[in-house]
């Protein structure tokens, strides 16, 4: 229950790590006091469990990276037969591991993720050996399609992230290697990428609201939103800095990007409160507004001194205003809770 009343006393207020951090920042606690306070509130009873999970995840990541590096090395002394059979055996081992450990378990999920990554390695080696001449997007498309059922079964957020990355790569390579857009259409790529990733974000939020377990973490939202903000930022910046109204694809992609960022502002401020996403959007829009200010001044103010003076003031005004907005909306105290 997130409640705050003006009359609340320290006896009623619940102690959180934020209280300890706040005292440390204000110089009322030393580092020793901070650590003792945090350890008191949140004792590390589960060192063994935590270390065990970290070892498992890192061990898997390093082994998979090692396998990818090995096949990228393309060892000539290893025949095609051994290359294929070794990858296939590894895929089978991973899938068997996922089945044996069950995919509700972290070990099972990691085995499944390993299997999905190795399918991509297999396809890459296939293209390498047979010199299929296929475009890169075909590799990523095949990879995405093959692993889709496994991703659906796995219900594992990092696996979904890999799947989404593969879709994005497929679209980008298809656009560059096969679609070959004209100059007037080239920026529609951003609209497509924004569309795909926005749909994924909406589905994620919908499932989050329906309390789907694997999507209750916050990191997927922040990662997706950062990706969307970056994709939308590029056409907006290009549109403003080029000052080009003749290219419809640039105008439309910038407009879509702008609408998306505005919807983020509203959605994550009033509807589904997430201060980090809101802050990142404010940062992006602040830079965009500075770019607009720069272009306007560049067009209408011909005196360099006045131009730079006004630009400095514009930057100062925009960022001060944004900082004020973020401070007002952060309401740190509101996150403090009432003790039982």
């Amino acid at each position, binding site marked *: 229950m997130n409640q705050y009343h003006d009359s609340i006393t320290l006896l009623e207020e619940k102690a959180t790590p934020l209280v300890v951090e706040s005292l440390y920042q204000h110089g009322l606690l030393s580092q020793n006091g901070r650590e003792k306070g945090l350890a008191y*509130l949140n004792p590390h009873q589960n060192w*063994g469990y935590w270390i065990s999970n970290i070892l498992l995840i890192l061990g898997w990541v390093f082994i998979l990276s090692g396998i990818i590096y090995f096949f990228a090395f393309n060892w000539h002394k290893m025949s095609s037969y051994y290359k294929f059979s070794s990858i296939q055996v590894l895929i089978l081992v991973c899938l068997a591991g996922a089945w044996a450990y069950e995919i509700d378990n972290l070990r099972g999920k990691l085995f499944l993720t390993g299997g999905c990554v190795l399918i991509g390695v297999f396809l890459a080696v296939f293209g390498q050996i047979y010199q299929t001449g296929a475009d890169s997007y075909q590799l990523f498309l095949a990879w995405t399609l093959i692993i889709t059922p496994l991703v659906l079964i796995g219900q594992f957020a990092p696996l979904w992230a890999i799947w989404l990355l593969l879709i994005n790569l497929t679209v980008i390579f298809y656009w560059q290697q096969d679609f070959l857009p004209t100059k007037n259409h080239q920026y529609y790529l951003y609209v497509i990428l924004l569309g795909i990733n926005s749909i994924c974000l909406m589905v994620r939020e919908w499932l989050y609201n329906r309390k789907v377990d694997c999507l209750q973490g916050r990191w997927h939202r922040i990662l997706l939103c950062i990706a969307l903000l970056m994709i939308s930022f590029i056409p907006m910046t290009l549109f403003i800095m080029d000052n080009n109204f003749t290219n419809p694809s640039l105008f439309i992609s910038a407009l879509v990007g702008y609408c998306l960022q505005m919807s983020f502002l509203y959605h994550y401020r009033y509807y589904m409160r997430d201060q980090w996403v809101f802050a990142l959007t404010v940062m992006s829009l602040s830079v965009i507004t500075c770019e607009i200010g720069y272009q306007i001044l560049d067009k209408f103010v011909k005196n360099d001194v006045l131009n730079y003076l006004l630009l400095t003031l514009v930057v100062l005004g925009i960022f001060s205003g944004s900082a004020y907005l973020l401070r007002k909306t952060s309401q*740190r105290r509101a996150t403090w809770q009432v003790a039982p």
Partner: protein
Amino acid sequence: MKNISVQALLDWLENQGVLKQRGSAEAYLLCEENIDHAPVYVHMLIGLGAFIGCWSAIGLLYASGLVDWKNDLSLIIAGVFGMGLAILIQYALKNSDELLHSFSLQLACILMMIGKVLFVFGTLHKLLIFFPTIGGSWLATLSIAMVVIPTYFAFPVMLDRFISTLVLLIALLGNMLFEFNYNLAFYGYYVALLGLIGWLLNAKSKHYDLEALTYASIVTLGFCAIILSHTESFAGMSHIKQWLVPPVVFNLTLVIAIILPCLAIELPKPLNHLSFWSSCIALLILGIISTNGIIYGIGLLILGYEKHRRSLILFGAVFLCLFIIDYYYSLSLNLAQKSAILAGSGGLLLMVRMILQHEQWDKEP
């Protein structure tokens, strides 16, 4: 997490002897105006604004001719003036209302950044005239130190402190790496940096003021890890003729630096010595077979968890991901060797986990 009141927490901290000013703490917590409404993202925003504003203000100085760029003294005076004004604004308006405070903080950061840039350029040119025999890069580091050290204490803005100390530490790193024929100086710097981080993370009486230095030192250690995986590329750029201290010694030094604080960790009962020591031995083996970036990432994860610093855990995880991608392109080893290092490291970690499982030390609480 324990479900207790703030009052109970303050009682406990006082009984432990770590809360000396109980009255001030209570007054501080009760008065909402004291609560800092500037989370990390506000600092990031202000930093971004200061960076853009600094460049446009430098453009203004250049266009207006207010500063004579060929006159060192003019640059130094303008720099000192900018920094002085920034400090004045920061202190004068730090208790103003939120809108004015946001404006004054942004303005102060821009002025401080411009002041520092102008001062460093002016001082460097002046020092080059006075000490023509000393290398320019050493004098540049000296100029940076001359401005960073006093302003660290005079201008208490976390972001400015972090960026400034990071620049100073990287400038020093550049000197150690590029100005010597052998890498002994670089190794000395590395050991000193580890010592500094060890002290900053473990000093009981350390206060919040030194947090920026702590994080700047940790980030610089990350740069060192990247340099150590690109020894071939850096050997071409620097004067280093021979790596007298091989990268494996750097790795082992880092491993020892991680193990030492681990010995002091108060592990929950029941203690399992086999699990603990096998983890330490695995870290040592990792130091021999693996690469510095991997050990650094693992070290951050362990320290972040132990010290209740989620930022370190996050940084460690992101660093590891980026490092594995960067490692692919390093020229020091071929892909087969790098593959063996990665797979070997992974295998070793999984073996340690098996020991933990065997000893039933990994049970979920």
